[in-house]
């Protein structure tokens, strides 16, 4: 629209540029800033009035001076979307990073993304088999769900995410997911790990990558997930793909949000994070789901590292209030050498109830899952007691449960990085392991399933 260039910058502060006396500028409008040396930076309007406009600059404000020329592009941020996004690698602002040509847009989509009308959503109910027993049995993933991985520094969350991306499929179907991968502030090393793994398995052809690395501008991270989700929505709802969005690491995203809040001198909420972080996160996470009349779906796997392993930190806390459960990675299990070190006790899938049972997984799934969980929980609790009174003080039931908790970790949780267990294998394994406990203590198992599936009765 307007080609007019302003040279009215008054202040530059952190990632923000303040300028005055402009024509009316739209809220959210895209801005380019031309520096004295001819280089171009991009930004977006955060606050606009007759007297003052505040622009957040994605590439950082280094070298911007008061003579820099600012042009308002007359439109809000849009991503050129096309089916050709699949198989491409883009940077955090949506430009090709793989040396390929620019994306030829079938459509330019607003990256903010409108909210899905709750009335127009369809309840998710399709079971996704990840091949990881702990997830399939205890925190079952459903197509259209948003299920974050709550991890911490030094834990193998990336391996788990990749394994899920590789193995995820609907039961009894070979239909693959399109993976939209969104990196926010991860290291080049981690990125290379993801990329080479996707390349190795051929998954890269079915993936779109949006990459903002640790040395890329922090502010750009604010838009990277929005680009990824806009691409995901387009692929899912215009081209009927089932899309799996993996983003890592949400903690870096939230820190970028805090950085902007601080530069704007906003009143901070908990631990300096802005008060609107809940709404902001919701605008990302809520872009998962299935809508009526469309074939595709968006399933989200955000990864976040909990600072100090603290699940009450604002980032996991606010995420947990929005997402439909969480998969919690345990340092303790990791240190015992167990992979995947998923602690099933605080993990949860809120949509599990809608996707398990005779029609989808197996009739005994709920019963088995409850019993496995309960027995493991009790076994873990007994470990504390044993540390005080010794194993001899336990009665027969408690001894069996204590032993079970060890087997649970060693055989049920533990699997190799390329082991893809079907849900039947997982549930059969559960029965095998539970058979070490006397049937009379397995109170959560339905009698009819004991008769049908218990190894003693099967033989």
């Amino acid at each position, binding site marked *: 629209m307007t080609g007019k260039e302003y040279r009215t910058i008054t202040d530059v502060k952190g990632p923000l540029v303040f300028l005055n006396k402009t024509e*009316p*500028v*739209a*809220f*959210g*409008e895209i801005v380019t800033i031309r520096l004295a040396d001819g280089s171009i930076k991009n930004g977006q309007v*955060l*606050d*606009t*009035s*007759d007297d003052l406009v505040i622009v957040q600059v994605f590439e950082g404000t280094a070298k911007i001076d008061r003579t820099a020329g600012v042009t308002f592009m007359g*439109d*809000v941020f849009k991503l050129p979307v096309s089916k050709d996004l699949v198989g491409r690698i883009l940077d955090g602002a949506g430009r090709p990073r793989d040396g390929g040509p620019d994306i030829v847009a079938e459509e330019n989509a607003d990256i*903010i993304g*409108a*909210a*899905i*009308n*709750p*009335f*127009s*959503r*369809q*309840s*998710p109910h399709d079971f996704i088999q990840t091949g990881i027993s702990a997830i399939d049995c205890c925190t079952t993933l459903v197509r259209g769900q948003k299920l974050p991985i709550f991890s911490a520094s030094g834990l193998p969350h990336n391996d788990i995410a990749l394994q899920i991306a590789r193995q995820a499929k609907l039961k009894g179907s070979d239909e693959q997911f399109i993976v939209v991968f969104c990196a926010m502030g991860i290291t080049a090393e981690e990125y290379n790990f993801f990329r080479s793994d996707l390349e190795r398995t051929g998954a890269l052809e079915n993936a779109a990558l949006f990459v903002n690395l640790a040395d890329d501008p922090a502010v750009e991270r604010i838009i990277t997930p929005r680009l990824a989700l806009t691409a995901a929505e387009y692929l899912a*709802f215009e081209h009927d793909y089932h899309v799996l969005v993996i983003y890592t690491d949400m903690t870096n995203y939230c820190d970028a949000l805090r950085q902007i809040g601080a530069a704007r001198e*906003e009143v*901070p*909420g*908990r631990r300096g994070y*802005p*008060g*609107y972080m*809940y*709404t902001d996160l*919701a605008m990302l*996470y*809520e872009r*998962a*789901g299935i809508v009526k*009349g*469309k074939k595709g779906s968006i399933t989200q796997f955000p990864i976040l590292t909990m600072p100090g392993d603290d*699940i*009450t930190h*604002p980032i996991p*806390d*606010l995420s*947990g*209030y*929005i*997402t439909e*459960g*969480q998969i919690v990675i345990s340092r303790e299990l990791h240190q015992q050498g167990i992979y995947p070190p998923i602690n099933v006790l*605080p993990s949860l899938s809120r*949509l599990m*109830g809608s996707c398990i049972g005779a029609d989808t997984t197996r009739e005994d799934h709920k019963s088995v899952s409850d019993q496995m*969980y309960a027995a493991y929980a009790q076994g873990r609790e007994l470990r504390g*007691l044993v540390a*005080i009174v010794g194993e001899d*003080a336990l009665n027969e039931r408690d001894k069996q449960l204590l032993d079970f908790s060890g087997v649970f970790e060693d055989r049920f949780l533990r699997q190799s990085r390329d082991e893809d267990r079907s849900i039947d294998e997982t549930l059969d394994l559960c029965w095998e392991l539970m058979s070490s406990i006397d049937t009379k203590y397995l109170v959560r198992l339905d009698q009819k399933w004991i008769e049908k599936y218990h190894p003693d009765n099967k033989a």
Partner: protein
Amino acid sequence: MSKEGVIYRISGPVVTATGMSAGMYDVVRVGDEGLMGEVIELHGEKAVIQVYEDTSGIRPGEPVINTGETLSVSLGPGLLTQIYDGIQRPLPTLEEVMGVFITRGVDADAFDLEKKWTFEAVVEKGAAVEGGQVIGHVQETETIVHKIMVPPTMSGVVKNIKSGDFNVTETVCTLEDGSEIQMMQKWPVRTPRPYRQKYAPDTPLITGMRILDFLFPLAKGGAAGIPGPFGSGKTVTQQSLAKYSDAQIVVYIGCGERGNEMTEVLDEFPHLIDPNTGKPLMNRTVMIANTSNMPVAAREASVYTGITIAEYFRDMGYDVALMADSTSRWAEAMREISSRLEEMPGEEGYPAYLSSRIAEFYERAGRVETKNGDDGSVTVIGAVSPPGGDISEPVSQGTLRIVKVFWGLDAGLARQRHFPAINWLNSYSLYPQSLNQWFRDNIAQDFPEIRTQISGLLQIEAELQEIVQLVGSDALPVDQQLTLEVARMIREFFLQQNGFHDVDAYCDINLQYSMSKAILSFQEAAKNAMAAGAQLNDVVNVPARTALMRGRFEKGYIDTIDDMVKTMIDEIGATVEDN
């Protein structure tokens, strides 16, 4: 100054306009697209507006038009069974107009203005009527009669009134002074609707959840808070209440919650049957769904929209229950807008007026004598989502200061899969005193005493558990071991309840009483048997006790429970002879 001004500044959902005459809380139309907003602050010439829709792409200089009205809801036949967003736009209509994504600038009537309803006058020509008085009936749904009232601000002598089929905007009644009454009226959401007087509540809201009805009862017209960390079952509890509580009208507000969960509710409710009337639950329900990614200002408004609708049905003489899930999201919306206004923050960035807003909201609950002279009530149940589950934060504290019932959800119990995960040690209800008489008259004379015994046992258990943690249960004397068994029975048989089970999800209050008596009968029988030499293990393991405990999942339990208890007592008696 005119009705029309121009935009001066835009910062997220907050827009400043100049050159417009405006009063606080006036509803304005912002920009070329006419986005809906509300004036929330005045600075000399400038009016600060919170906008209920996304403001991207709006520019300074675009027009702002003051409608001169305050944010109001439309009230009349057609409300029930509706699903609204935070500012009373029906979601199905929005879907028709905008497709599956909610875009902006669309206005929608709260209900069908053309539909004809059969109005049956109940006052005659010449009658003197006052504001709030019922002048006619409309059978809105199978179960609910919608009472048409004189708007609270009007009164006079009926000049003309006619029964017949009308739509909601046609005049059904004229007064001598010429004022006309339609079936639809409007009411500003931030102003409580008037009533004659408030009464002390004396009737419990029966919810069918044992731990709530029996241990921590809520009165009709009372207010309850349910704080709990994520995953502890707030939403499931709220939904159970919406399904099974014996209110006549239910208003369910999904305030800033998950889209998929809201969809589940929207999918599920139309198929549910009200256990009290046998008719579809939707017939008595109004839903408001403003998910977490819908505009934040509309989230702030949604609780007011909901409570105004609740008060309207209360004024017809109904018992209304309102569930707000979650009030923390409402408070956060206030915080977000306050911070955009650059107000001086109070605790944790929340505005200093947070606690007074919370108090004002809960104060709109109550049992009242309506303007028509009937008895009506609004019961408010607010979920609170404290960060990290720590209830020392401002929203929880603001809520606890005002509500009389606290149902504290506990992450530890949820992890043990004990549902509903309401902690019986720190939850409380201040209503038992005023409700005891009702329980004595309607359920059983000794109801309050039984309750005291049950909660006493749970207290003793908590103390004994501390010892058990150290030395193991075998080290306790047998009578204390029995107490632990009885307490375990209370927890597993009585307090635990499966909200998804066909039968167990709703427990009749009379059955609750029988079940609690059954537990005490077990204790009594076991004590006697053990005094006569029976072994604890034998007593606990009698088959009839297991059968009794499993029985709650069977239909018709209320008829069989007494016999099962008798069998159990006999079997326990027999354990003495075995020895």
